[in-house]
Structures are given as structure tokens and as C-alpha cells.
């Protein structure tokens, strides 16, 4: 690791921190929107953006080795599959009350 790259890292950390604080402030403003579905969706998208910034710049995935990037990508991909299957199950499952009233004699 060269001295120049480490000095550049300080600038990258500073920029990332400013971006994270700005995104958190935006989330905070949105949280005042009250009972709004879109506010919740945008808040989660912002959370995803913040997570991406932390992973790429603070955790150095943007300049990490291929094996590390592959490991991280696999973890995120598996999490996405797990989340999608969970949500699909929730959205397509009939409630236990419905099932018992229809299925059982």
C-alpha cells in the first residue's frame, strides 16, 4: 500500500462520511412524513444506498481482491434469494384461519 493511496483513502473516507450523513438526514426528514407508504419504501432504498457506500468505501470492497469481492457478492446474492423467497411466501400464503376454515371438516 503506497502513501499516496492511503492519503487518497482519507479523502474517500471523508467524502463517504459526508454522503452518509446527508443520506441519514434525508431519511430523518422522510421519517417525519408520517403514515405514508412511499416514505417507508424510500427510507429502505436509502438504507440500501448507505450500506453500499459503507461496503464499497469503508470496507474497501471497491478495491478488494477478486476472491473477497466474490465472497461478499455470494453472501449478498444468497441474502437476496432468502429475502425474495420469504417475501414470496408471505405474499402468496393464505392465513392459518382461512386454511383451517376451508381445509378441515
Amino acid at each position, binding site marked *: 500500500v503506497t502513501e499516496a493511496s492511503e492519503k487518497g483513502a482519507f479523502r474517500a473516507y471523508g467524502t463517504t462520511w459526508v454522503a452518509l450523513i446527508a443520506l*441519514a438526514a434525508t431519511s430523518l426528514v422522510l421519517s417525519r412524513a408520517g*403514515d405514508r407508504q412511499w416514505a417507508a419504501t424510500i*427510507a429502505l432504498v436509502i*438504507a440500501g444506498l448507505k450500506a453500499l457506500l*459503507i461496503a464499497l468505501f469503508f*470496507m474497501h470492497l471497491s478495491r478488494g481482491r477478486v476472491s473477497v469481492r466474490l465472497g461478499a457478492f455470494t453472501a449478498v446474492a444468497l441474502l437476496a434469494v432468502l429475502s425474495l423467497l420469504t417475501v414470496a411466501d408471505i*405474499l402468496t400464503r393464505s392465513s392459518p384461519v382461512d386454511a383451517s376454515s376451508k381445509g378441515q371438516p
Partner: protein
Amino acid sequence: MSDDRHATHFANRRQREQAAELGMWTFLASEALLFSGLFGLYASYCTAYGAAFYLGRSNTAHALGAANTFVLLTSSFSAASALASLRLGRRRASVLLLSLTVGFGIAFLVLKGVEYTDHFRNGMYPGAKHGFLVEHPLRGLPIFVTLYYLMTGLHALHVTAGIVVLSVLGFRVWRGRLSDRLAHPLEFGVLYWHLVDLVWVFLWPMFYFAARGSA
């Protein structure tokens, strides 16, 4: 101080560090899976008991949750800077930044303690016989409260572990046992701290935003 020792199955020190780095990321992935199971549980119950979860979120300590978010995001910045300082050979700056990070972590736990104390006073805890849960006998609300303590409590345990790890590493930097030539133990400790921050980024909207349908 450098450490050129490596086990015989490694060709050199660099290869040892690369193997350790991959191992650390595998550990972080397993931690992410632990929390993702709880996120899935939250999503399931939030869908089933939307009104109760909305009421629960409306009664958490929003100001303290927001303050803790800014505290943790800033602590990640100081932790990353501590590592960069060590790599530049600035041990003193690294120790100061690590101390600052640990301080932020302690501040997070103090605010969390204030939050929990307030909730216990108001009867917002599993099995409460007075206050919030008794006044709102809503189906699903006790589940929200249980998940709130389970997930934020598990996260607080991780913050505590991070504080201990960074304190030990900071001591080692101070004593000169870690340096620009041997910085990877601090890199792994800082990676762990970033994961703790990353988890909180999602916990914040899940438990502290009163918008209907959060998470």
C-alpha cells in the same frame, strides 16, 4: 515491528494475510446471515400485523434512534481513518482515532440504555403488566416489542464486542505491537465495526420510522 512468521502451509506472510482476510469475510457473511433470519422474521410479522407494528414504531424513541445513527456513521469514519493512519505509520493518530471510535461506541450504548430504561418505565417490554402493552391490547404488538429487544439487543451485544476488540487493538497499536508493517489485525477489527454499523443502517428505519409499512 513486523511479523514475518507464517505457518508452513503458507508460502509467505502475504499469503497468510490473504487467507485471513478471506476468513474474516466468511465470518462477516455468517453474521449477516444471522441478522437476515431476524429481518425475515420481522418482515413476516410486519406483514401479518401491520397496524400493531405501526403503533409499535410510533412509540419508540425516534430522537435517540436518530442520534445513534449519526454516532455510528461517524464512528465508522473514525475507525476507517484509524486504519489508514496506522498504514501511514502514524501510530499516535491511529490510537487517538481508535479511542474516539470506542468513545462513540460507548455513547451508542449509553443512549440505548436511556432508551431501554424509558421503555421499561412505560411498560414497553415483553410480559409487561402495566403501561403501553396493557393500554394497547393489539394482536401482534407484543411480537413487535419482543423483536425490538431481540434485534436491537443483539446488535448492542455486537457493539459491545466491537468496543472490546477495538480497545484491545488500540492498546496493541499504542504498545507498538501493530504497525504499518503489521496492520491486518486492525483491518479485521475495523471491518467488524463497519458490519455493526451496516446492520444498524437497516434497524433504524425498521424500528424508529413511523411510516406505515416500514421494512
